[in-house]
């Protein structure tokens, strides 16, 4: 490290009170920014959990569908129409709905029930325990062992429950990539059993899951589906549509944006003000350095280094604190939805860079305008 930066480092960290205040300000701001954006990421991720877990390439739905949880049943002819599209390798129906379970201890528990195509079981989860073919057995259901699993009373294979006056039996335990948003456990069964056990409207298919023969066929499939008045979205498009709904058509996105902005402003004001005070308190020393022979660029580098060092340290502490907070929260709240993504980190990092830049701008301006003559004048 160049000597001037080493001096800058010592001037900064040896002033423990100021350094501590700067770190607290930036750490707190980073913590809040990442926490807020992570919560939002968690909500968005969970809101499309079914889409991720099922994993179909193309989802066919009613054009009015906004989220995967609010499906609008499709007439049966749509399935036949889609299967007749040349680029479609196969298309299967998916049932997605809610049911009220009566558990063995007599308590009631809402659950999300996914009915998979009887012939292919397309979209089935990976099993932790049991065999997938047992889902065809009488009353067979597979429970997803996610953060909501305990709400089913932590059932083992063979555990029984009631679903709409029908007997249900857990025949397997599965794992999925993502838990749902609404805090209810998930059960998989066959499409036909889902229709049989859960009251349905005239139309029964919540979605059609489609695999194209090749990715190049996707545009044609989407056009053909649109021609019959329905909507075909790729997995990523469906996830994006769900995210868009939660971002712009609920208060969640706005609230998160406001909280993130407030965190940024708090961080900027605390660290900006503290850093500027730090520069002001050392202004005579910087003036003395200038008189001794330090060049303007030496002083600018020193200030940028100080701002950068404290910002990056605060960023690291903030990220660590946030990770610790999320980890701790999950110990006590399995449903806690926060996820730290690369995008969250990059966003917070950019904001920290803005905080460092703004803080150092005023410091640099002050130091560059100090006249060494003032040092002599006292």
């Amino acid at each position, binding site marked *: 490290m*160049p*000597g*001037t930066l*080493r*001096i800058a480092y*010592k*001037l900064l960290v*040896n*002033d423990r009170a100021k350094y501590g205040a700067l770190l607290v300000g930036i750490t707190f701001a980073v913590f809040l920014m990442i926490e807020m954006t992570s919560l939002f990421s968690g909500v968005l991720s969970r809101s499309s959990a079914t889409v991720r877990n099922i994993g179909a390439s193309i989802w066919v739905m009613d054009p009015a569908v906004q989220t995967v949880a609010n499906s609008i049943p499709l007439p049966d002819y749509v399935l036949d129409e889609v299967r007749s599209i040349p680029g479609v390798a196969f298309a299967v129906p998916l049932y997605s709905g809610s049911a009220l379970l009566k558990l063995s201890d007599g308590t009631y528990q809402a659950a999300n029930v996914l009915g998979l195509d009887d012939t292919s079981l397309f979209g089935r989860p990976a099993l932790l325990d049991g065999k997938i073919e047992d889902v065809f057995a009488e009353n067979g259901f597979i429970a997803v062992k996610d953060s909501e699993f305990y709400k089913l009373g932590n059932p083992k294979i063979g555990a029984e429950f009631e679903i709409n006056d029908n007997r249900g039996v857990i025949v397997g335990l599965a794992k999925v990539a993502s838990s749902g948003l609404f805090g209810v456990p998930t059960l998989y069964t066959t499409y036909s059993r889902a229709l049989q056990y859960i009251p349905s409207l005239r139309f029964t298919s919540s979605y059609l899951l489609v695999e194209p023969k090749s990715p190049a066929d996707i545009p044609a499939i989407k056009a053909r589906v649109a021609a019959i008045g329905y909507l075909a979205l790729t997995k990523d498009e469906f996830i994006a549509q769900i995210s868009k709904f939660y971002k712009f058509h609920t208060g969640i996105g706005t609230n998160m944006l406001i909280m993130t902005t407030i965190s940024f402003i708090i961080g900027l004001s605390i660290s900006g003000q503290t850093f500027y005070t730090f520069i002001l308190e050392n202004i*005579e*020393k910087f*003036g*003395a*350095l*200038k*008189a*001794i*022979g*330090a*060049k*303007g660029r*030496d002083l600018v580098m020193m200030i940028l280094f100080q701002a950068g060092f404290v910002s990056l340290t605060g960023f690291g502490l903030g990220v660590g604190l946030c990770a610790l907070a999320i980890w701790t929260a999950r110990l006590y709240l399995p449903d806690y939805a926060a996820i730290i993504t690369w995008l969250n980190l990059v966003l917070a990092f950019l904001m920290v860079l803005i905080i460092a830049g703004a803080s150092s701008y005023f410091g640099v301006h002050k130091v560059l305008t100090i*006249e*060494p*003559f003032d*040092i*002599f*004048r*006292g």
Partner: protein
Amino acid sequence: MKIAIEARGVHKWFGEGDARTYAVKGVSFDACFGEILYVVGPSGSGKTTMLSMISGILRPDQGTVKIDGTDIWDLPDDDLAEFRLRKIGFVFQDFHLFPRLTTAENVAVPLILQDRPWDEAIAEARRDLDVVGLGHRADLPPVKLSGGEQQRVAIARALVSRPEILILDEPTASLDGDTGQAILDFIRREILTEQRCIVIVTHDSRIFDFADRIVQMEDGRLKSIEREKLDAQ
């Protein structure tokens, strides 16, 4: 003796038009290597402004300042900063030591600004602290030192890059009489060499005995007077 500082017709004013106020009016003087020159005068007489102009930190509005033959105000800003760094040592009135650095690190600052390796600069600073009798205080922060010791640290910092010109601004202002005398005695015995010119701005008549020449400033003008006359005043 060889001329170290050559000031000719130096003017400095602040403000313009009717508001123009002259701080220094046409001052000319020389200072030589191997001598201690005092610039004395009452507050507001322009001595600090003059000091700033001959040390390359305040541009005169008129006149020239040459140091060892170089017209310093002809130099570009960066070259002038480099010139100050290598040729001129400063001892400020309030010392302006960094409280967050150790004494040795404070002394090493000019060397570090010259891009000398850290360890080498610190080693050299320790040697200079030995010269001023503070080798045993090298690892303490300046706030742990007495006023006289801080003054000696400031002198060591000014000397560490072996400057030809040493400028001291009110070096005894914050010291008691005995300590001030001791510091000036030390400067004359240990610091003054044939290759160095020392300029001291002061209004402390107790230390006039240490000067080779004394020039007095008054209302921005400079007049050279004998030390005996000043003492008599």
